[in-house]
């Protein structure tokens, strides 16, 4: 089997896009020192609202906008207690993840009249880039949010290192009191960033439910938000490394599918992304250790 088939790469991109968008949000939070493990819930919430709005309006872009707005609102549930009141963000996030799971399943029954999966001809998905005239391999069948995600990596990397606000954000994350002492509006930064992460998770959710597929199903975030959290931890708050980490996951997942095709059991495919990521983490840590020992 040829790993470098276009379809393989396209599959990797598709699997990566929602994770990457959510992870970018997580990275932003990490930059200002808010440990955001609510990505899973926010992603799910975004996916749900995207489908509801698209279904109501018949416009996928309205769905995206709705998802972004609604997830920003949802992330205020994190930012107000965790930033405003300095409650433990981990605890809040655990609560929010549960809340999103319950709320989407509950509202789904109330709005669509049934649980499980909702798909309908009224539901408009995001157009393919091919339909929009970008007829190149790999990208042809992706939604416009995929290149947006990739572009955001570049934008965020440049912004964080080169701009004034980027420097201030990084500073605020390194030492809260110090940032306050030099007069930076730290709380405003943290609120802003947490809400911005909500917007990114909204995009991620919309990409999942209107880009990757065109439907909503209960719990369809299916652990992708947690993978994003891990990617953030792997990234060392560097956007390019974050991209690498997310791609690693995408490749591992697509590779896992191939393992199945090659006759390995489904369980091997399930485990593959996690095993590969853990291996990467361990190798990176060993490498760091070896390097510091060589100096000694």
């Amino acid at each position, binding site marked *: 089997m040829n790993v470098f088939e276009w379809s393989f790469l396209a599959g990797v991109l598709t699997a990566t896009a929602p994770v990457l968008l959510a992870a970018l949000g997580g990275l932003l939070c990490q930059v200002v020192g808010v440990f955001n493990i609510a990505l899973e819930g926010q992603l799910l919430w975004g996916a749900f609202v995207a489908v509801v709005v698209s279904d109501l309006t018949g416009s996928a872009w309205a769905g995206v906008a709705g998802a972004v707005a609604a997830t920003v609102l949802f992330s205020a*549930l994190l930012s107000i*207690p965790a930033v405003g*009141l*300095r*409650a*433990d963000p*981990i*605890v*809040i996030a*655990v*609560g*929010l*993840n*549960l*809340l*999103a*799971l*319950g*709320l989407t*399943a*509950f*509202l789904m*029954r*109330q709005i669509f009249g049934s*649980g499980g999966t909702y798909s309908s001809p009224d539901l408009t998905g995001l157009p393919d880039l091919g339909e929009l005239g970008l007829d190149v391999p790999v990208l042809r069948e992706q939604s416009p949010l995929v290149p947006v995600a990739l572009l955001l990596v570049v934008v965020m990397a440049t912004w964080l290192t080169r701009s004034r606000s980027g420097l201030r954000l990084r500073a605020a994350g390194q030492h809260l009191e110090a940032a306050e002492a030099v007069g930076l509006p730290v709380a405003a930064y943290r609120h802003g960033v947490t809400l911005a992460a909500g917007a990114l998770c909204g995009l991620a959710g919309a990409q999942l439910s209107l880009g990757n597929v065109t439907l909503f199903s209960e719990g369809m975030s299916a*652990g992708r938000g*947690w993978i994003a*959290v*891990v990617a953030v*931890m792997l990234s060392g708050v560097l956007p390019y490394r974050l991209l690498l980490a997310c791609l690693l996951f995408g490749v591992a997942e697509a590779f896992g599918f191939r393992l199945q095709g090659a006759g390995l*059991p489904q*369980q*091997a495919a*399930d*485990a593959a992304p*996690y*095993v590969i*990521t*853990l291996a990467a*983490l*361990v190798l990176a*840590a*060993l490498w760091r*250790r070896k390097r510091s020992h060589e100096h000694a």
Partner: protein
Amino acid sequence: MTAPALARRVVVSAPVVAVAGALALTTLVMLVVGVDPTLAYPALIRGAVADGNLEYTVAAFVPTLGMALAFALPLRAGEFNLGGDGQLAAGGVAAAALALLVPLPPVVAVVLPLVAGALAGGLVAAVAAPLSTRLKIPAIVSTLLISTPAVALASYLVRFPLAEAGTGIAQTPTLPDAAHLPFLGGSGYVTIGLPLIVVLTGLWLYADGRTVTGYEIRATGQNREFARYGGVRVDRVAAVALAGGGAFAGLSGALIVLGPPYRFVDGALTAPGYTFTAVAAVLLASARPVVVPLTVALLTVLQVGGQGMEREAGVPSQLTQIVQGLIIVIVAVLATLQARRRR
């Protein structure tokens, strides 16, 4: 403290206020979506405690409490164990394999699989310890990453080597009679797993507050550098705490498998979401270990009662997830406000 003063303290304590606040919010949600709260809440209570449901609630309390210990013990040492699912599945499959493959005399046939389950769970969790202490990979990440492969491995074992032939579902054959956990009294659900886990919880509470190990675990969790300075072998303490947590998870898995229907059914251990319910319960107890059994009981009642509410009042049981999520958020906020007021 006088009784009224004590009562006032309890009433305004964070968990009580949080539960009240969350119920108020949930009622609001119900009213907005057109569910009658006067029907829903009684149904919820009945679903949890009335008729024969109490028995079921108690049965569900056992693994949830076990998983709460699995999260709480490492947390006291400052390690987040989010890999409960993997440890639970590993414990369950180890217990099932032992009971199926090795013919054992009565009593031993129950005890050994339980021990095997605890060992397997502890082993899976212990992997995270050197990763955390030596390679600085936080346990919150590594336990999470190890969990899925462990669940997959258990699933594989149940699907292939240990599978029951000629059935449509991925499960092991029924375990031999000798390995069945005896029921408690005349119950059809509650096994001796209940007294076992209650005793273990008591032991843990005792160990946490009254033993050297408990003290060293707490010191490690409060300030690792301080503990190290005080001569505590913090790496070992962290490893012991993680492995101990994993052992509780593995034991919970074994208890499920040795109870009815006396087999490992693929997915049956992880699908009910014991792990995260337990995490929520422990966080709800906000670092007061004695409260953990109570918060576990509360969340179990909500979860089991939610099913009853759905059956009787036609209210989607997801509503209880909403209540739980809200409770956790509100508790965290209140705990913070309280801590601030103390300062």
